[in-house]
C-alpha cells in the first residue's frame, strides 16, 4: 500500500487522473460484463432447459402414442381368448388379421401353455410376421416357454414389454415384443393359459429419436429398461453396450449414477458428456410411460452457447475499444489541464526564487486554471507593489532607528561611565552599570558631589520605553542636577523635581527614583524614595537589610507632593546596592521572575567581594537565569561601599 501510495504521491496529476479513472472504468466494465454474461447465460440455459423438456416430452409422447396403440391390440386379443372358447383355426385367422390390419405391428402370436389345448398339444403358438411385403406364417415349434416374451408376463402376471432384441429371422432389425398374459378360470381358480404378443420393429422409433438434432452435435438416445442403448448415433453402442458398461469403460461413477436415475424412470436435466464428441452437454431425460424405456436428449453446451459467446466476445471487444478511447480522451484532457498548470508551475518557480518579473503564461480560458493564472498574475503585481512599499517603509524605519540609536547613544553618553569615578577619594567606592534593553529605555543613574563632603547619587526608572522615555529621563536627570544644591535635603530636591515634572506632563509619564546624599566623612546618609525599589544595605558580615521605605509616590504625577527625607548611617565597609526593577523582574523563558529572593541570596553570597565583582556576579546570575529569553527592560545597578576615614 505504501509503495503504491508513494508512487501515486510522486506522480503527476495526469498520471493520477489516468490511473484512477481507467481503473474505475475497468471495474465498471468488468461488473457490467460479468453481470451481462451470467444473466444472459442463465436465460439461455433456462430457455434450453425449457425447450429440452418440451422436446423430450413431445418425443416421448409421440413414441408412447404408437406404443399405447399397439398395446391395445394384444390386450383385446387376450380378452377375446379369455372370455370365449375357440378352435385353433380361429386364433390363426385372428392373428393373421391383426398383422394384416396393423401396419405398425411387425408380427403377432398367441402362445399357449403346454397341453392346455389338449393332451396331444404340447405347444401351440401360431405366429404371423411381415416379410418382403407379404405376411408369413410360422408355427413356433421350439420351447418358447422360456423366452422373455413368454416368461416375463407369465411370472409377473401382467403385460410387459420385452427388452429390445435383434430379430434373427426377419433380418437385422431391432424388435420389441409386447406380451399380454391371459387366463381361464378352471374350477374357481385362475389358470395361466398363455400370452398374446405383438412385435414391433423399432426402426421407426430409432428414426424418431435419430431425427433429434440439436445444434451441430446434439442428439437423442433411447435406453431400454436395462440401460441398453436402443438408439444412439454411435452404432457400436446400439444393442451392445449399456450406459453402465460405458460408465465402467470410462471409469465414470457419475455416469453410472445418472444411468440408474434413467432406468428408474426419473425425469431430469443434468450435465452430461457427449458419448460422441466428448463435449460438455446438458441432457434432459424422461421415461416412456408405456415401456419404461428412457429417452435422453443431449444439448451441446458450447454450440448452444455459441451465440452468447459471440455476443460476449463483441461486448468484450467494444469494452476494450471503449477503454482505449477513454484512455486517449483522458490523456488529452489531462494534457490540456496540466499543460498550462505546468507552465504556471515553471513561472512560480522563477517567482519563488525572487524573479518577480517572470512572464506568467497567458491563459485565455475562464476555467479554474484560467482563474488561477489570472490570480497568480494579480498576486505577482501586488507582490511587486508590496515589495516596493516595503522597501520605502524599511528605509524610513531604518532612518528613525538610526536616529533612535543616536538618541540612545547620547542618553548613555550623559551617564557617567568612568570607574572608579573619584580615584583620589578613599572614603568610598562606587560602581554602576546600565545594561540597556534593545529599545531605547528610560533607566538612569547619576552621582555627583553637592559639596566637598556630600555625594549625591540617584537611580531611576522612567515609565515606558522609546524616545519619549529617553527624553523624560534626560529631563529628570537635568532637573535633579539643577535642584540638588547643598541647601536642600533629598526630600526637598525630589519635591522640586516633581513640581517641574508634573507641571507640563500631558502624556502622564512618570519616573521612580531613589536619591541618596552621603556624607563621605561620617557615613551619614539622607535619602528620599519616589516609589522606587528599596535598595539593600550589605554588611561586612554578610548581613543584608533593605533601606527603610519612605512611602512616597512616583515623580511626575502629583503636583505639590512633599517628599520626605530619611536618614541612615553607613558603617565602615557597608555597601548600599541600588537597582531598578529590570533586575528583579528579569524573566526566564517560562516568564518566571528573577525576584528579590534570588537577588538577596546572590548578594549574601557575594558580600565580601569587590563592588565590581558583586555587580558582575549579579549580572551573570541574571544572564544564567534568563538564558535565551530576550531582555525586556533595562537593568541598572549601582553599588556604593563606604570606607570612612581610613
Amino acid at each position: 500500500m505504501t509503495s503504491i501510495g508513494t508512487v501515486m504521491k510522486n506522480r503527476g496529476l495526469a498520471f493520477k487522473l489516468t490511473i484512477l479513472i481507467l481503473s474505475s472504468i475497468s471495474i465498471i466494465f468488468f461488473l457490467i460484463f460479468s453481470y451481462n454474461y451470467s444473466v444472459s447465460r442463465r436465460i439461455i440455459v433456462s430457455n434450453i432447459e425449457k425447450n429440452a423438456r418440451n422436446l423430450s416430452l413431445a418425443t416421448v409422447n409421440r413414441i408412447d402414442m404408437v406404443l399405447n396403440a399397439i398395446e391395445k391390440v394384444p390386450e383385446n386379443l387376450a380378452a377375446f381368448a379369455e372370455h370365449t372358447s375357440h378352435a385353433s383355426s380361429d386364433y390363426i385367422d385372428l392373428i393373421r388379421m391383426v398383422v394384416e390390419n396393423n401396419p405398425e405391428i411387425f408380427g403377432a402370436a398367441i402362445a399357449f401353455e403346454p397341453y392346455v389345448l389338449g393332451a396331444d398339444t404340447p405347444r401351440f403358438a401360431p405366429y404371423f410376421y411381415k416379410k418382403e411385403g407379404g405376411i408369413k406364417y410360422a408355427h413356433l415349434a421350439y420351447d418358447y416357454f422360456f423366452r422373455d416374451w413368454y416368461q416375463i408376463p407369465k411370472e409377473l402376471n401382467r403385460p410387459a414389454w420385452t427388452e429390445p432384441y435383434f430379430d434373427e429371422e426377419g433380418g437385422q432389425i431391432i424388435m420389441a415384443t409386447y406380451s399380454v398374459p391371459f387366463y381361464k378360470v378352471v374350477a374357481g381358480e385362475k389358470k395361466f393359459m398363455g400370452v398374446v404378443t405383438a412385435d414391433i420393429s423399432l426402426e421407426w422409433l430409432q428414426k424418431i429419436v435419430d431425427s433429434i438434432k440439436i445444434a451441430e452435435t446434439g442428439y437423442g438416445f433411447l435406453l431400454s429398461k436395462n440401460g441398453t442403448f436402443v438408439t444412439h448415433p454411435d452404432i457400436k453402442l446400439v444393442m451392445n453396450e449399456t450406459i453402465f458398461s460405458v460408465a465402467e469403460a470410462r471409469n465414470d461413477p457419475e455416469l453410472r449414477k445418472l444411468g440408474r436415475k434413467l432406468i428408474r424412470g426419473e425425469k431430469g436435466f443434468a450435465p452430461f458428456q457427449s458419448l460422441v464428441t466428448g463435449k460438455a452437454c446438458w441432457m434432459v431425460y424422461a421415461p416412456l410411460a408405456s415401456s419404461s424405456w428412457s429417452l435422453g436428449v443431449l444439448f451441446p453446451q458450447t454450440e448452444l452457447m455459441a451465440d452468447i459467446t459471440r455476443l460476449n466476445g463483441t461486448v468484450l471487444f467494444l469494452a476494450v475499444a471503449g477503454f482505449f478511447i477513454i484512455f486517449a480522451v483522458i490523456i488529452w484532457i489531462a494534457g490540456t489541464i496540466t499543460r498550462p498548470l505546468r507552465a504556471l508551475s515553471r513561472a512560480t518557480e522563477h517567482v519563488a526564487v525572487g524573479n518577480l518579473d517572470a512572464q506568467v503564461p497567458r491563459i485565455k480560458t475562464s476555467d479554474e486554471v484560467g482563474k488561477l493564472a489570472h490570480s497568480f498574475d494579480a498576486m505577482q503585481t501586488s507582490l511587486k507593489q508590496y515589495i516596493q512599499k516595503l522597501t520605502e517603509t524599511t528605509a524610513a524605519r531604518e532612518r528613525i532607528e538610526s536616529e533612535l540609536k543616536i538618541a540612545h547613544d547620547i542618553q548613555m553618553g550623559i551617564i557617567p561611565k568612568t570607574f572608579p569615578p573619584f580615584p583620589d577619594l578613599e572614603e568610598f567606592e562606587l560602581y554602576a552599570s546600565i545594561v540597556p534593553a534593545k529599545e531605547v529605555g528610560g533607566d538612569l543613574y547619576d552621582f555627583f558631589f553637592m559639596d566637598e563632603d556630600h555625594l549625591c547619587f540617584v537611580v531611576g526608572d522612567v515609565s515606558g520605553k522609546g524616545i519619549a522615555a529617553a527624553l523624560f529621563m534626560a529631563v529628570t536627570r537635568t532637573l535633579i542636577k539643577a535642584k540638588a544644591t547643598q541647601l536642600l535635603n533629598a526630600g526637598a530636591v525630589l519635591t522640586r523635581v516633581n513640581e517641574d515634572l508634573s507641571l507640563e506632563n500631558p502624556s502622564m509619564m512618570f519616573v521612580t527614583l531613589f536619591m541618596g546624599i552621603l556624607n563621605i566623612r561620617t557615613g551619614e546618609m539622607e535619602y528620599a524614595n519616589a516609589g522606587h525599589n528599596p535598595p539593600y544595605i550589605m554588611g561586612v558580615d554578610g548581613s543584608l537589610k533593605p533601606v527603610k521605605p519612605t512611602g512616597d509616590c512616583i515623580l511626575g504625577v502629583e503636583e505639590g507632593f512633599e517628599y520626605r527625607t530619611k536618614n541612615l548611617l553607613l558603617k565602615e565597609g557597608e555597601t548600599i546596592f541600588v537597582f531598578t526593577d529590570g533586575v528583579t523582574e528579569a524573566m526566564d523563558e517560562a516568564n518566571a521572575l528573577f525576584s528579590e529572593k534570588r537577588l538577596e541570596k546572590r548578594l549574601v553570597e557575594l558580600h565580601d567581594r569587590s563592588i565590581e565583582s558583586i555587580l558582575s556576579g549579579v549580572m551573570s546570575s541574571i544572564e544564567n537565569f534568563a538564558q535565551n529569553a530576550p531582555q525586556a527592560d533595562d537593568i541598572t545597578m549601582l553599588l556604593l561601599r563606604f570606607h570612612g576615614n581610613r
Partner: protein
Amino acid sequence: MRNRYSHFTLLFIVCLCSLLFHPNAVSASPERLKKATFIPQWVPQAQFAGYYVALKYGMYKNHGLDLRIIAGGPARPSSDLLKNHKADFATLWLSTAIPLRDQGVPLINIAQTMQKSALMLVAKKNSGIVKPADIEGKKIGLWGPIFQVQPKAFFKKFNLDVKIVRQSFSVNLFLRDGVDVASAMWYNEYHTILNSGLNPDELSTFFFHQHGLNFPEDGIYTLEETYRKDPDLCRSFVRASLEGWRYAFSHPEETLDIVMKNLEKAYIPATRVHQKWMLERMRDLMLPDDAEIPMGKLVPGDYRRVANGLKENGLIKNIPDFNDFYRNCYEK
C-alpha cells in the same frame, strides 16, 4: 547419407532382436508340425482367451502343433464335434463330460483348466435375501439339468423349499423381479446384472464353491483313441494352451485386443469391459489365490463330488473310474 546408413544398421539390429525373441520366430519347420483341431464350447469370448493367445503367439507351433481352432457357439456343440471326430480337442464342463462318458462317449479329460465353479446364485437384497435361509419359499431361476445339480445340492444342504422357474439365457426375468433368485455365471451373467444398473452392494451372491459345492467347470477333453495314438500330441496341446493362458493373464490388454478382434470377426456383439471382467474372473477361477492346485490338474475329490452329484440327480447311472477318465498331461 551417414544418417541413412546408421538407420539401416539400427533396423537390422531390431530385426535380429525380434527374430531372436519373438515367440513366432522360433518355430519348427512346417513339415514336422502335427495337424490338430480344437473347438471351445462357446463363442470366442475371454472364457477361451488362452487358446487364442497361444495360437496367435505361436505357442502351439513351438510345441510342434499346426493347430486350427473351430469357432464354437450354439450351432456347434463342442461335444458333438469331438464325438464325431470333427475336432481333436474340445473344452467341456466337467459335469457335461462325465454324463457323456457314462453314456459311452469315450472321451477323457486331459486337463482341468478351471479349478473353481463360476456358477452362482444372485438375489436382490431388497427382496429380503441376504443369507441362504432367506431363499426359503422364493422363486428361483435355474438353467437346464446340468446347471441344476449344484443349486439342488445347495437347497438340500440348507433344507430349503423353493419354487424353481426355468431360466432362459437372459437375466431379464430376474431384473424385472419375475424371479427372486437367478442363476448366473460369475464371469458372465453377474456382470450383465451389474451393467444393467444394479450395484454389487445391492446384490446378495451365493457362490457354490464357498458352500462345499465346488464343481470345477471348463476342462480340455479328447477321445481315448486320440490319446492312445499320440499322447505327445495331447501333452503338447495342453502345455501350449496353459502357456497361452499364463501369457493371457499377464498381458490382459493384449489379450483383450485379440478377444475383441475374434468376436468382431464372428459378428458377435461384445463390449470390452465385459470381456475384461470375464478375463479377470477366469484368472480367479483358473489360478485361485487360495489353492495350490496347478492349472491342468483334475483333483480326484472334485471329480468325485461332481460325479456323485450327477448320480444323485439321476444324470448318470455309474460313476466312471477316475483313472479311465483323466490323463495327466500338464506335467512333463
